[in-house]
């Protein structure tokens, strides 16, 4: 089993993929179990807990990161979000939901890779769109110049 905790640089409380279910070149699927104990539910919102949309984006970006680094375990390069494109949120994610997170490569050019991303709960799409990830090169940390 692929361990997201050891593959991604993220750690508690910012790891949004609990388990990688499928991972191959260009595509991957993982799950995130959303519990009532998530720290963000304390304020979002006290009376009406809803998973923040930006954290669903984060989960999809982490899944994209796993796809990006698949087969390149030896390289531990930092990856940044370069673009979040046309993301739609279709229904709220609440405690008890299991997020199924899917990322698929569309195009790689230079240090940038575009992914089609999707998050589902019980086969219903809760969010979908595109994310571009940029791999950091040691000599250049300016995202506007990465390619």
């Amino acid at each position, binding site marked *: 089993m692929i361990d997201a905790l050891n593959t991604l640089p993220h750690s508690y409380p910012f790891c949004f993929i609990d388990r990688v279910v499928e991972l191959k070149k260009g595509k991957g699927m993982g799950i995130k179990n959303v519990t009532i104990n998530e720290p963000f539910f304390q304020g979002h919102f006290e009376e009406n807990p809803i998973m923040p949309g930006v954290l669903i984006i984060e989960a999809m970006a982490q899944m994209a990161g796993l796809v990006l680094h698949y087969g390149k375990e030896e390289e531990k390069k930092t990856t940044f979000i*370069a*673009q979040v494109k046309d993301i739609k949120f279709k229904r709220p994610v609440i405690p008890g939901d299991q997020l199924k997170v899917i990322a698929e490569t569309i195009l790689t*050019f*230079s240090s940038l890779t575009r992914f089609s991303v999707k998050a589902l709960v019980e086969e219903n799409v809760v969010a979908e769109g595109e994310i*571009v990830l940029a791999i950091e090169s040691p000599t250049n940390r300016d*995202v*506007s110049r*990465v*390619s």
Partner: protein
Amino acid sequence: MDNIKDKIKEMIVRRLKLKMSPQEIKDDTPLFGPNGLGLDSIDVLELVAGLQKEFGVVINDKAMAERILISVNTITNFIEKTKG
């Protein structure tokens, strides 16, 4: 061949959501830099995708992009050369 240039300009404005009309882009307007359209590297990815999907030409790497993505003129030359 002006038709191809108009199509490229339309593709650039549409895909990059530029707040200008395609006619405002001259054939030799630099795509990058303060004296041109001021595009950035993330726009390059979009242009590469657009040229591939809509014009059937592939730009493989950064060196190629630097040679081709200079202006509408240079893109036109590349498309004409590639497609004969």
